């Protein structure tokens, strides 16, 4: 196959060649002419009709739905694309904001595991000491929503904690599973455990004033106003029991690594020992778990000593096992 192309030199070339000798001029023109015979190999490509078909399909695909009309305004489609992009960007942004908000609203949880105690400083500066096996939950800065300041400081407690609340215009509220304790600025202990035997919320006041409300009947309230005052919202009954302890420090011995119980059923005391020393206590049938007890141990308290004393008082026996103790009812006289 020959390449024909343009038979004569284009004018600017002719002009340049023309400036040279007649012989050179003739020879150059001849070279130009001879080039028409240069080989041009066959290209191994689809023929023009096939290529046209292919091209049409690609254009349709490129234009998407607009390709059906074939006269789609590219600028318009670019406009819609921009709108679509803007829309998806907005949706993405909204999703990000919502996710951030959700993350922000995730409450803060502080847990003291069995066998350990923890202390926390709350966002307002109030101090909380958390006894073993207890959990305190509160919102970031006590706020429901970012930037909106809360009108009260709310924490949720399960377990036992001693609070030293910084005085502020926003009331401080401890919510437990069955009671609400409201204060302005004071020191007090809250014990709240939904146990079947002896469960409830018990508040011991160290200083200041607190108001306890039964969450089941909000009209039932009790003010604690003097150190040593105790309010007890029991799990079983609706009334709030008021009592008094002479020595607050003794009632709150746990804070000094001691151990104490005031008029608590044996089951409740044993559960407290389990949490406090991270052991497990098994009780065999025949032991009166509802019997009330009052105990006090100083900082040297150990599980072995407490169990020994308990059994002595109850007239039962105990056996040490790998994870803790088994309490055995008094043996019948042989």
């Amino acid at each position, binding site marked *: 196959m020959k390449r024909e192309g343009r038979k004569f030199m284009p004018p600017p070339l002719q002009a340049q060649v023309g400036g040279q000798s007649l012989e050179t001029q003739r020879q150059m023109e*001849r*070279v130009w002419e001879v*080039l028409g015979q240069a*080989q041009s190999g066959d290209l191994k490509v689809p023929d*023009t009709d096939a290529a046209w078909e292919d091209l049409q399909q690609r254009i349709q695909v490129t234009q998407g739905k607009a390709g059906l009309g074939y006269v789609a305004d590219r600028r318009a489609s670019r406009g819609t694309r921009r709108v679509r992009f803007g829309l998806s960007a907005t949706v993405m942004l909204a999703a990000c904001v919502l996710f951030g908000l959700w993350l922000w609203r995730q409450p803060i949880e502080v847990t003291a595991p069995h066998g350990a105690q923890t202390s926390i400083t709350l966002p307002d500066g109030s101090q909380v000491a958390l006894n073993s096996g207890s959990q305190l939950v509160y919102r970031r800065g006590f706020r429901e929503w970012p930037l909106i300041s809360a009108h009260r400081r709310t924490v949720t407690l399960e377990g036992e904690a001693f609070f030293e609340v910084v005085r502020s215009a926003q009331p401080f509220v401890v919510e437990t599973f069955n009671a609400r304790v409201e204060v302005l600025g004071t020191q007090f202990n809250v014990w709240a455990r939904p146990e079947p035997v002896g469960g409830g919320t018990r508040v011991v006041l160290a200083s200041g004033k607190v108001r306890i409300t039964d969450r089941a009947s909000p009209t039932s309230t009790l003010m604690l106003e003097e150190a040593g005052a105790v309010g007890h919202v029991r799990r079983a009954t609706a009334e709030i029991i008021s009592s008094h302890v002479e020595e607050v420090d003794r009632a709150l011995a746990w804070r000094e690594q001691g151990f104490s119980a005031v008029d608590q059923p044996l089951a409740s005391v044993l559960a407290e020992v389990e949490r406090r020393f991270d052991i497990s206590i098994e009780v065999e049938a025949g032991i009166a778990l509802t019997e009330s007890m009052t105990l006090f141990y100083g900082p040297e308290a150990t599980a072995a000593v407490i169990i020994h004393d308990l059994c002595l008082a109850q007239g039962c026996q105990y056996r040490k096992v790998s994870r803790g103790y088994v309490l055995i009812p008094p043996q019948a006289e042989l």
Partner: protein
Amino acid sequence: MHSGGALEELCQRLKASDRGAFEQLFRLLREGLLRYVRSFVASDAVAHDLVQDVFVDLWCLRERLDPSQPLKAYVYRMARNRAYRYLRDERAHAEKHAWLRREASATSLEVETQVGQLDEAALARRLHGWILALPARQREALLLSRYHDLSHQEIADIMSISPRTVNNHIMRALEHLHDHVQAFEPALLAS
């Protein structure tokens, strides 16, 4: 060959999204573009793909065409850009040069073995080989001028150089080829 006027009219219609005009342009320009692109890339298939791409682009930007500008040079320029981008993307420069040298030397070997046979096919092959052996810019300018019916100004637009440089490139190329032809068969120049 179609005059610039016919192309200008087709360009006008293409701008108005006339599919018939687009098809006519495709049939008119495809072959030349294929050969032009093939002079850069190492395979027919790649040249075909690139030319198809050029026409897809052309359709997409049809509304922004300026019919007062020479469409053919514009399309060639698109093809050239495509080819260069392809070469850059594929890092195929080395390949390209290797291929060119291989083909060129193969052809010159043929020349050695076939001296004295002045049949047309042999001449055609040799001319092809000599063109391939030209420096790239000279070859490009010569091919565009000789076989693609483009003016110096259009070639200058396509290659992003001045028309004067186009002229120089072609002149050099012709001088090279003149020497080859004379050494091969002086009779060709004498007639």
